[in-house]
């Protein structure tokens, strides 16, 4: 695929995180190249979400290195990692509950420049208004795309389970990161809107974002992902295309089960 | 005010009202200091009204709660002034004086202050009159008394920054001037269940006497600690006026207090005045006299007499009359009614109240003698006088002589 073998965008080596006796992530190695759409699958409790927490800096790894865009980012605080261009969505949605859906989206749009008190006071009002209008237009367009437009002025805590997931994904879509870690963006989303999210993911990639997708819905993984990484018990058990992996006995036994294999 | 407006069975016709403000902390942690101010003032007002009021007007007392806070005091006083136009203010205590002083000065209202801080020993504000002796006089008296008794080593123990900051430097300097030595000084936080380490430290310093002012729970805890150390007899205690209060005496235990402590109160009144005060106080407030109420009482009567003398409520005029009704020479009077009668006859009077002679110096500080009291040892916690210290003695103490 990549003949010149450019340096991968994300390179994870020997990543480890134990919680007491639980080896959630136990020596995990994989890499993601720029522009790729990679699936990360594996049984429940395999350590997928923990990997996301580690990569995004919300958890500190016990060991291992993470090279992102050529820089070691393991152990950096989350805001530094975000600033480096890596953003993630949460498996259990975390909206800002007592802010409106619109505000939830606006916060996801990174402010241009630093959000300091002085800047707030010294920027001329016309510039402030223009910037605000631009951000708002973007947020509303996204809201429309994920059917959140009618709810834009509602508090985020009033959203239904599926709507929360949509908001979660919409926020990522707004940040336009270099690498997006998507943790089950479609669980609980209506099939029709899953298609919408699928389109959203494709758009992201077209805009230059690399995607690492965690998903149990294999139909999607198959359609979207160039490549799939299978995690079992904290380690990478196999990588390749989903079609190849379906026949892999480890994958079948740990993940797909009888029906899935059939 | 439901003060019976009768005197010798006939109704008194008032031609209107005149207001006095009684202010101090009435709620919160300092309430115990402020409530007696109001009650003392109301007791005086009752007697004043019974004698026909001031210049024919009925005296109304407005209680104002400062919450012990100069900021609250300032706004509360501003409201009171706007609504009731008081002719005089009784109170507040030291805590709030700097918040209210600008207001009564600006509005030219007489203030009969109830604070002890030596900061006003050389007061020049003509509206401010301190009706209780300054802590500095008391400190001198306590130091002198101890030296008279031959105690050459002393310790000091105070609760609260307020007491220690005003008494500590005074006692220290007077005591040193008289040749004594302070061997330990402790200031403790009020209301904790035990002060054993502090008490132990004092015992170890081997003083002969300890000067003190403690809140009741603290006093109780300190004496318990002392008892369990077996050191009750190691030294004697000399307390401030506060320590003569019934609650403190009861907290220490009347018999323990009797055996180990003396305290200082403003020189005693002629007994008639005190009896009238006590019975009227009980009638108006439905409980026994609380410590500090006497100063507000005397102050109110003194101001009322001065107004009668000046035939005016205008403060600038009343100020000039205060000396004339309170300082010698003159016929000693102990009640408002008495004073009023003599004033009407054109006599020069000298009001002597429940807290002793109300003689103001040129800084508007009352100078009086002191009584040394000791608990009677009865359950009520009352005290009796065992010795007096005269103003002349105080002057001697100040110059370093016994």
């Amino acid at each position: 695929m990549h003949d010149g073998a450019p340096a991968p965008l994300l390179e994870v080596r020997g990543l480890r995180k134990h919680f007491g006796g639980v080896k959630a992530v136990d020596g995990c190695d994989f890499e993601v190249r720029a522009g790729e759409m990679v699936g990360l699958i594996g049984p429940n409790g395999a350590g997928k979400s923990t990997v996301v927490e580690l990569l995004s800096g919300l958890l500190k790894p016990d060991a291992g290195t993470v090279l992102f865009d050529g820089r070691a980012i393991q152990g950096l605080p989350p805001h530094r990692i975000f600033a480096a261009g890596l953003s993630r969505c949460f498996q259990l949605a975390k909206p800002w509950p007592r802010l409106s859906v619109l505000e939830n989206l606006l916060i996801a749009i990174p402010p241009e420049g630093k959000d300091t008190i002085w800047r707030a006071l010294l920027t001329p009002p016309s510039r402030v208004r223009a910037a605000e209008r631009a951000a708002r237009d973007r947020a509303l367009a996204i809201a429309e795309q994920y059917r959140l437009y009618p709810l834009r002025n509602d508090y985020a805590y009033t959203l239904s389970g599926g709507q929360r997931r949509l908001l979660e994904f919409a926020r990522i879509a707004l940040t336009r990161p270099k690498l997006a870690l998507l943790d089950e963006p479609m669980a609980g989303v209506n099939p029709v809107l899953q298609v919408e999210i699928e389109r959203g993911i494709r758009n992201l990639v077209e805009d230059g974002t690399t995607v690492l997708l965690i998903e149990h819905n294999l139909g999607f993984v198959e359609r979207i992902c160039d490549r799939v990484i299978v995690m079992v018990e904290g380690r990478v058990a196999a990588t390749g295309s989903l079609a190849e992996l379906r026949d892999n006995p480890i994958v079948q036994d740990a993940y797909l089960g009888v029906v899935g294999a059939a | 005010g439901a003060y019976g407006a009768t005197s010798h069975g006939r109704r008194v016709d008032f031609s209107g009202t005149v207001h006095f403000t009684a202010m101090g902390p009435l709620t919160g942690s300092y309430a115990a200091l402020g409530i007696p101010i109001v009650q003392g003032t109301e007791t005086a007002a009752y007697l004043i009204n019974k004698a026909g009021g001031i210049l024919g007007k009925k005296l109304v007392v407005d209680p104002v709660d400062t919450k012990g806070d100069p900021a609250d005091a300032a706004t509360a006083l501003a409201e009171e002034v706007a609504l009731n136009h008081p002719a005089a203010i009784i109170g507040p205590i030291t805590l709030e004086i700097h918040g209210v002083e600008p207001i009564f000065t600006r509005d030219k209202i007489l203030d009969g202050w109830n604070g002890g801080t030596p900061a006003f020993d050389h007061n020049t504000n003509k509206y401010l009159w301190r009706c209780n002796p300054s802590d500095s006089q008391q400190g001198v008296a306590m130091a002198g008394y101890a030296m008279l008794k031959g105690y050459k080593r002393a310790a000091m123990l105070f609760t609260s920054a307020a007491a220690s900051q005003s008494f500590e430097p005074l006692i220290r300097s007077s005591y040193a001037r008289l040749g004594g030595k302070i061997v330990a000084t402790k200031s403790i936080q009020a209301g904790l269940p035990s002060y054993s380490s502090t008490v132990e430290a004092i015992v170890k310093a081997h003083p002969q006497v300890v000067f003190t002012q403690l809140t009741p729970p603290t006093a109780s805890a300190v004496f318990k600690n002392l008892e369990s150390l077996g050191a009750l007899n190691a030294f004697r205690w000399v307390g401030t006026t506060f320590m003569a209060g019934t609650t403190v005496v009861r907290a220490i235990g009347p018999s323990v207090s009797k055996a180990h402590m003396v305290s200082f109160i403003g020189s005693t009144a002629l007994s008639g005045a005190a009896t009238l005060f006590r019975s009227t106080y009980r009638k108006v407030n439905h409980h026994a006299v609380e410590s500090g109420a006497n100063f507000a009482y005397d102050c109110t009567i003194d101001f009322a007499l001065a107004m009668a003398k000046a035939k005016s409520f205008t403060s600038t005029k009343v100020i000039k009359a205060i000396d004339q009704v309170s300082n010698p020479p003159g016929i000693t009077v102990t009640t408002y009614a008495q004073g009023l009668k003599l004033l009407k006859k054109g006599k020069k009077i000298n009001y002597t109240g429940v807290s002793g002679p109300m003689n103001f110096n040129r800084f508007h500080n009352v100078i009086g003698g002191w009584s040394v009291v000791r608990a009677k040892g009865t359950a009520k916690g009352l005290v009796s006088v065992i010795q007096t210290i005269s103003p002349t003695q105080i002057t001697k103490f100040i110059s370093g002589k016994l």
Partner: protein
Amino acid sequence: MIQYTVTVCTVGAITAILVLGVNVSWGWVGQIDLAYYAYVAIGAYAAMVLELPRAHPSPTTPNSYILGLHWPFIPSVLVATAVGAAAALVVGTIALRRLRGDYIAIITACTALMLTAVTSVDNHLLGGYIGVYGLAEPLNTALHLGPTGYSYFYLGLCIFCLLLAYLVLERIYKSPFGRSLRAVRENDTAAAAFGRNLFWLRLRGYALGGAVGAFGGALFANYLLAWNPASWSLTEVTLLIAGVVVGGQANSRGVIIGSVLIESALPQISQLFPLLTSNSTIGPSIASILGAGGIIVMLRFRPGGILRERRAIDRTGGPESLVPHVPAVSFARPTTATGVAVGTSSEVERDA
């Protein structure tokens, strides 16, 4: 009566400034900050020791204050504001780095208490429990106003300062900085994942609150011309917080209304029961009970405060092209209602 109105308005304006400051740490950052009044006190003390001459002319207690610089009013107030911010930075650095919610409440309360202990125990520092006093009316050396004229002038000054504080804070609230603060308040993990530096944001918000508090404190001390440790306690900060809560957290206009209600209207309740409250023994207690009860009642009827926090609201019906083409799948609520009833809904997201 006019003089009284002027007093009430002046104190009201200063209180409103203070409440705006509390609103920053409580309303915007969502922190239960009980040290707030310490910043007010720090501002007050700082302004006083800058403005007062070094030695106070009292022969028995030659009070001298640590600085006693005899500065003019304006620079003193500005420096006092900065000192307040700096103090908040120090406390914040300790309290905000690793702690959350209720712990911060306790830590800050303890900090305030320790400061009270220090200022009242040590009388060489700031005059002990008697505090600092004896300030001449600021700016009046130049203005030469009479007592009444001066009180009008100071009222005007306070109202001007209130307006200034209001405008500045509104500006900040609406800026990305303000929005980031609210994101941190609502869910800090998510805010961190979206690039917010939690500690630094909280700290700056906290220092901003401290600065406003100190600013108000400096004005207050210059109004009272005196300040001592008795004037700042949990009671004071609670009343300010009550103003915030009653008015509506994080809504500047709301909290100003709230503070006016708490500081001026509430005490009037007791005027409604003259028989009860005129009694000198129980009157003040009854007045306090009525006051506290009044706060509870107000909250009972408007638990969310008088004015709600303003959400960014989009009122454009949306361009025609944006109207959903498949109505059946859209999320529009059954009939109308895009505004939500807060506080009545049954489930509020808890943080996992």
